[in-house]
């Protein structure tokens, strides 16, 4: 492999740090209980491996806390005031990452007030990660050397480590984030560490050419991370990474934020509804009353041939009821 393809790469890691979900994950009744402490130590080894393999590799870590998203670490600027003292036995950048990430996480977790836990701000973290990537790639494109901008661009990737279930109200922002990621040519990788498969993140990985992995053996987290998420896109052309073969393409409706099997799509703005509506709530298009009645009568069973204004979602998007991920070869 020649040096032209040996470009530096950027990795933004998004950690889902919901206290409830991590408590559930650590219960001894699980097949492979995983505590947040052991998760963090394996994660830090993975982060070190990323910045260690190449000097120019950059890293950013974002945390999704209940109702709040925080940037925990970035290699471009110092977030903590006091850098850790140098130690003869550890590589300074590694020490920097480790202490910064753990210190920031502890600070945020301590600040959480007891009481009802709002859902995790995964979308906020994802958006922040995209904004950050946009910012670090922007200087090279806006400066005078336009032709050079494309060659110096690091291959940006986002890795989402998720433990929370899907939040159906975040469907629209997640889809918007996916479209921005596609435009920025960002690959989104997803590792589902605990809980059931999430429909939205599966779609995110699929649409941005990333890989979605459901962690079956949670005691082997580090090996999963290294083999599937460490290789930059160019190495993935030689060593494959597991891909899911079935993707759940279901969408959430715009009116009640439910994930729907069959939906109704506005023919003007493509908004999705779980039941026929007389007026589109997004673009204010009025639908003919006749069509509405016909759709309503056909509502319980999927309508065979929907009239013009409203289209059956089944025709628009492929649909699978159950999502399974590709099993990973070669893991212990």
């Amino acid at each position, binding site marked *: 492999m020649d040096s032209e393809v040996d470009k530096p790469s950027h990795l933004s890691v998004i950690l889902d740090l919901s206290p409830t979900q991590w408590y559930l994950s650590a219960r001894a009744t699980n097949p492979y209980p995983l505590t947040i402490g052991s998760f963090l130590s394996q994660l830090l080894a993975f982060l070190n*491996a990323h910045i*260690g393999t190449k000097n120019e590799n950059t890293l950013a870590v974002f945390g999704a806390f209940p109702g709040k998203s925080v940037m925990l670490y970035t290699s471009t600027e110092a977030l903590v005031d006091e850098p850790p003292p140098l130690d*003869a*036995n550890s590589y*300074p950048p590694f020490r920097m990452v480790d202490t910064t990430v753990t210190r920031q996480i502890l600070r945020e977790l301590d600040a959480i007030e007891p009481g009802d836990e709002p859902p995790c701000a995964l979308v906020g973290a994802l958006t922040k990660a995209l904004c950050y990537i946009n910012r670090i790639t922007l200087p090279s494109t806006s*400066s005078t*050397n336009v032709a050079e901008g494309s060659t110096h661009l690091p291959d940006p990737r986002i890795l989402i480590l998720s433990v929370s279930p899907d939040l159906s109200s975040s469907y629209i922002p997640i889809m918007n984030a996916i479209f921005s990621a596609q435009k920025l040519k960002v690959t989104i990788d997803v590792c589902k560490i605990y809980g059931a498969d999430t429909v939205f993140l599966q779609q995110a990985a699929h649409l941005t050419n990333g890989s979605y992995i459901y962690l079956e053996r949670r005691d082997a987290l580090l090996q999963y991370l290294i083999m599937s998420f460490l*290789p930059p896109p160019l190495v993935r052309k030689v060593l494959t990474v597991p891909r899911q073969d079935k993707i759940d393409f279901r969408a959430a409706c715009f009116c009640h934020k439910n994930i729907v099997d069959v939906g109704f799509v506005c023919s003007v703005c493509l908004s999705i509804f779980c039941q026929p509506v007389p007026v589109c709530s997004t673009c204010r298009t009025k639908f003919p009353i006749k069509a509405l009645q016909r759709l309503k009568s056909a509502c319980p069973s999927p309508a065979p041939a929907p009239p013009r204004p409203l289209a059956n979602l089944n025709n628009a998007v492929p649909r699978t009821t159950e999502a399974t991920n590709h099993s990973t070869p070669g893991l212990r």
Partner: protein
Amino acid sequence: MPSVQALSSTPSDVPQIVPHALLPFLRSQSQNTLTRLYQRPSSCLSILRLLGPLERQLIMNLLWLESAIPVSTMAAWVVPDGKKLYSEALSVLVGLHIVQNSTVKLALNPTLKSSLRQAITGGGTTASFGVPAERDEKRLPVGIDSLDAYALERWETILHYMVSSGQEQLPTKPSQGVLYLLQRSGLMQSTNGSNLQITSAGFQFLLHSPHDQLWSLLLQYLHMAEERQMDLVEVLSFLFMLSTMELGRNHHSCSQEYTADSLSETQKAMLEDLRDYGLIWQRKGSSKYFSPTRLATTLTCHSPPLPTSTTPGTSATTSSTEVALSSTAGPQGFIILETNYRVYAYTNNPLQTAVLNLFVTMKYRFPNLVVGMLTRDSVRRALGNGITADQIISYLVAHAHPQMRKNNPLLPVTVQDQIRLWELERNRLKSAEGFLYKDFASQADYEYVLAYAKQLGVVLWESPAKRSFFGTLEGHANIRGFIERRSGAS
């Protein structure tokens, strides 16, 4: 009689980036040496960085496995098109004794595995990342800026000495150790005992990137270390340790000092040599502390942003605004080449000017700008020094001004072609040693001898009009014998 000029073949053994120049050297070492080297976490980390992306990934894949895995399991991850790259990467790893040579199972060298794990997780007691010095109020730390300036000054002294060795006015001489190294590496040679003269390999060396230059000198240093009975493992691990050290803390913008107490005797001896190359800064020669410069800490980067190529010279005679302007305008490069062969170089750095002077005829010189022409004479002079057309072109590409980068292709095609044509021009003449046969008495005689010479296949040139031909040296004895027999017979 034409004679052959001993054309020294110019082997381009000056290293390319791919694969890294150090890897062949490491591969030539014994397994014992390498295993000793792998005992230090910092060495493992540095070697990991010198490898290609695929090799790195393979090491990482194997790093956290407790037991060896079957070869077929690993191969299952390889896409069909990547089989060749994969086996090449594996053979590199086996050659470096990183992966144990086996056809059934794949496993990392156990020493390397435990050291690399230690490097990534931290801890242990090897102190392989350098023992930092206590901050002391009495020793005021130097700023990173002045450290960069120091490294730059040291490094440019070496290059400047090389480039101006052929001229009358000699700049400041680097230290004796550097001179010896330059001579040993064949970049310079002393022709008549006294003065060192730059060789054609040296001219080529000047056009390489600073990173390549640094490594080819260090490689030479390693070869020399073997002869000086220095322990190679100690030398290498010290270099690797330097490359993992911290240049300075982010927000202090002052350098980080390390203590030399924990170094071995060999490594303490190296301090002086490396100080001469600008890799290390020390307050004074006997100081117990040292700071690595940017040259040292970027050793294992593939494309390091070395200060050498970017910062304008320290001898800033121009006003500071002009320097700031020129440095912000061209952090990447400073050369503009036009289709009319004119070269505008926005620099006030005497070294860059001197390097350009190797193949450009200088016309005007302004405080921040040098103007010159690429002419047939100037390029032929460079070619005569052993520089190739490709090297000139790649130098111009590497140092092109940001404004030039908008062009596609970057350099004007006419100029590129012309430089290549000028190179071909030099290859028009071929010289060979031999004999010229002329003044034949008659046309028949001439043709008879010529036919014989052609039978032997020794004719290089013939001219029936002049009744003469030229034969090689080897054929001379036969032809002379033939002519003598013939004239004796008649």
